[in-house]
């Protein structure tokens, strides 16, 4: 694992693998990476907004738990973006198939489950507040 992390920070090693690809493919890979970073940033921003703009929820500290979960998820998306970018770049250089990933599906399910939890919390608060 540490070896993979060290490789992310070593561009020379990336260039030593396979053939230099058409630069347009590398640029497209870079834009996909950036789109993932913005997804991560949106989750981080959502966590920060949850912590300061959401009114307190019925369960104690649920708001803070949601905020921290969103922040950590955003960080994880950023790390995964680097990993996926590096693996894609490697596959392009070696002329292999692009790496498949379960991550987008898992992320979508996690965000969906979180949104459902929040809807339940808001409904409980609305009904209990009467």
């Amino acid at each position, binding site marked *: 694992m540490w070896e993979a992390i060290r490789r992310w920070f*070593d561009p020379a090693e990336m260039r030593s693998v396979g053939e230099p690809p058409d630069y347009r493919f590398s640029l497209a*890979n870079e834009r996909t990476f950036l789109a993932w970073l913005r997804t*991560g*940033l949106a989750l981080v921003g959502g966590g920060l907004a949850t*912590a300061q703009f959401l009114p307190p929820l019925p369960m104690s500290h649920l708001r803070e738990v949601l905020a921290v979960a969103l922040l950590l998820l955003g960080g994880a998306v950023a790390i995964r973006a680097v990993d996926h970018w590096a693996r894609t770049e490697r596959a392009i250089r070696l002329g292999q198939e692009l790496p498949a990933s379960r991550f987008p599906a898992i992320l979508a399910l996690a965000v969906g489950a979180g949104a459902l939890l929040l809807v339940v919390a808001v409904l409980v608060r609305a009904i209990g507040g009467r």
Partner: protein
Amino acid sequence: MSTPRDPGLQPERTRLAWRRTLLTVTVVAALAVRLASTGGTTGALIAGLTVLVWGALLVLCWPRGTGTGPARTGGRTLPLVASGIVGLALLGVLAVIRGLW
């Protein structure tokens, strides 16, 4: 420009993608500073660190794709920028936890 013009405008699109990312970083940093600076020395420290990370990301992201020569891709900037975003997330976690007491 010495290289033939790419009809897909890929370098330009990549530059704009970097700019969009930087804009998002700026909004997130502003949210983090607002959350952290609600009082206290720890909050001020977290806000200060957030501004530092934002500055580092500004320096890293801004020059990307501004050159007119052949496109430069990849490199160390990508993992560094991602690390900066992880840093912003962790500072945010600190700011949220600090608000609990």
